[in-house]
């Protein structure tokens, strides 16, 4: 992917009155949309969109992936109060590592990494209530 090209496109869009931009060729497809002041760019594959929506979705910083809560409940960063957190910012995790707990109706649901990655940011606080789809972590694929 040619970052410079995309950057140029965004600058172009921001300066212009354009609100939407789509481009596709043999190698890639890009869609730019402008609504009021926001600029969002995303690269999506058509297959398994639902899957992506549920678990992870490219964030505004393109290289980061969101890990979302698979259920409504309470987020816990550690196995018990006072214990060290499962993961911290900057940490490398393997596929299957427990990232956190989401408690729903007294059941502690361990959320595991679906792929090896680096934790870039923890998006919710310990004991915070989360919905289905709330972003829990921003990660980078390892």
């Amino acid at each position, binding site marked *: 992917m040619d970052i410079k090209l995309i950057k140029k496109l965004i600058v172009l869009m921001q300066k212009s009155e354009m609100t939407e931009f789509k481009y596709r060729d043999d190698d890639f497809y890009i869609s730019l949309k402008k609504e009021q002041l926001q600029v969002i760019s995303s690269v999506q594959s058509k297959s398994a969109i*639902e899957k992506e*929506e*549920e678990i992870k979705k490219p964030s505004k910083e393109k290289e980061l992936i969101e890990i979302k809560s698979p*259920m*409504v*409940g*309470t987020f816990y960063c550690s196995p018990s109060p006072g214990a060290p957190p499962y993961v911290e910012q900057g940490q490398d995790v393997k596929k299957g590592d427990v990232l956190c707990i989401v408690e*729903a*109706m007294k*059941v502690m649901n361990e959320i595991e990494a679906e792929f090896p990655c680096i934790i870039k940011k923890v998006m919710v606080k310990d004991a915070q*209530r989360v*919905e*289905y*789809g*709330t972003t829990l972590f921003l990660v980078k694929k390892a």
Partner: protein
Amino acid sequence: MFKKILVANRGEIALRVIRACKELGIKTVVVYSYEDRESIPVKISDEKICIGPSSSDKSYLNIVAIAEAVLQTNADAVHPGYGFLSENPSFAGVCRDLDVTFIGPPIPVMKHLSNKLEVKKQLKKTNIPTILGSDGIVQSAGEAKEIAEKIGYPVLLKAVWGGGGRGLRVIREEENIENAFLAAHEEARVSFGKADIYMEKFIEHPKHVEVQILADKFGNAIHLFERDCTLQRRHQKLLEESPSPFLSEEKRKEILDIALKIVRILNYENVGTIEFLLDEQENFYFIEVNTRIQVEHPVTETCTGIDIMKEQIKLAAGEKLNISQEDVSLKFHSMECRINAEDERFVPSPGKIEKLFIPGGPGVRVDTAIYSGCTVTPYYDSLIAKLIVRGNTRNEIIERMKRALDEFIVEGIKTNIQFFKKLISNNRFKNKDYDTNYIDRNFLK
């Protein structure tokens, strides 16, 4: 009175609950699937919680997620709407354990009424007219044959735990009964998890009449007159009206009295519907009690001017019924068409609504959560709008329904609006010449 109600449903009925809550000054929480995140109920509710992905199993039927949402929001009551968890005693039990009110009848009443055969036996003993049939579960094809001979063909085999028309078999001749029994048995087992089957005399050319009931916990109960729901497609109601065009004044009084008697026998509480079949000689037979707010409740609201949803919430909060039977009258004739997103062969037609004009003007009510630009998804029921009209005569509501259907514009998806135009313009509709099989016989090839 409740301070905050959690709405455990979607679409027009979620919106209906929110409307009632707003008018009563009660805050609302709506739980929703990711698919419904841009829906009107989510937009206008005070609070909202996303509880799962599009699949109903993981969202609107997800008891754990809904219970968790109740806890998170401190709601003090749950309104289940219709469908989904509305007749699920386990969910009502979870609500009780969380110390929040499940808006519906008491759990024991709900449980009791889900066993249709037991209820029928009980009511038969108290001289409520029921359809002739087996006095219990039919255990074998041989027993089926025996009973059928006694009550006379044609007969009907029904699943004890069934509903919605599944697990039903009509048998007109003795030679078919063995195969029919085995098929119905298997269908019941697959569809409802329990194979129990019972038998009834099959009523030819029946009409479906139901009585709307309000009952409080202090033993006060009133009826809001009847609805005719004869026009069905494969046991799914499509058009309802009130008053019933098939009842004489005498029979109307009789059926309303019997309905109230049933309420007393069952110790029924909250809103409910007592369903009857009417045969060609105007004899009526009890079928079952529906323990939820029904899709077609606006028909009765429109005739009587009583807001059933608000009354339901007040009754669930333990308030005393403040409407007496003398206060209730049929101020208007009223009729409802269920507008579904489906093609001319009644196959669901999801998609994006590109252009929309919803009927309005005098005597027209529409209950819908659709808007131009929204997407009708394939995940849920295909009902997209309920079009209800009122007028001073049956003729006036027929003409008004025709003009309302005429001005209803939905582009981008297919609907059954055209079907209703045909149905209502037919003289057989005007002349009341139809029964519950009319649509299946005349509009399905």
